[in-house]
């Protein structure tokens, strides 16, 4: 079965520019997650979707970050405007049910460098 697909793999932008990342989860997975992984740290959840509804976006910087999952399948994460501290790997993950025992399957991530 196909895994979680993410694009692009790398992105370099200047501060104050905008950027978007795309994620296509494993077919049939209701739950989709976006994590931010800063160098030297573990991933931190930004937002969790259950189908096309938001379950948790408590750590999403809503003044500059936005995410959508309009049809309950693929998702887009946007940053506008980007800051230097947004340099990180953005990981997308999906799981079947979205409960605590679920295994989350991760994509290869997008490495963002903000100059």
């Amino acid at each position, binding site marked *: 079965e196909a895994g979680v697909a993410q694009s692009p793999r790398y992105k370099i932008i200047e501060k104050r520019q905008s950027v978007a990342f795309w994620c296509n989860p494993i077919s049939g997975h209701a739950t989709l997650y976006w994590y931010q992984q800063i160098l030297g740290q*573990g*991933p931190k*959840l930004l937002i969790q979707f259950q189908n096309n509804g938001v379950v948790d976006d408590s750590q999403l910087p809503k003044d500059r970050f936005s995410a959508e999952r309009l049809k309950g399948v693929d998702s887009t994460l946007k940053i506008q405007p980007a800051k230097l501290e947004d340099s990180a790997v953005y990981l997308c993950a999906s799981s079947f049910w979205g*409960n*605590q*025992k679920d295994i989350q399957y*991760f*994509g290869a991530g997008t490495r963002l460098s903000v100059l």
Partner: protein
Amino acid sequence: AQTVTQSQPEMSVQEAETVTLSCTYDTSESDYYLFWYKQPPSRQMILVIRQEAYKQQNATENRFSVNFQKAAKSFSLKISDSQLGDAAMYFCACSTGTASKLTFGTGTRLQVTL
């Protein structure tokens, strides 16, 4: 809120030897799950092993096993017969409550030498 602590930034093991990676966690929940994920240079996080908190028996997956000490809130990973392909970052993580959000530790970089 839960916290996960990995106190070993780096570990090294010789091929075919055994290594143990440490993890402690803190949560006020009684029902939770613990995970070890591996992240190779390709960046894709891969599940290594999962432990249900209400199960006393330690989880095992082939060469990987855990030592789950619930009272001490400790969850260490043992890798037996280490292979070159085991070299990666290893993250300990916890999920609690009705949501499945994972809280990760800061990771341990494992080197495997010949």
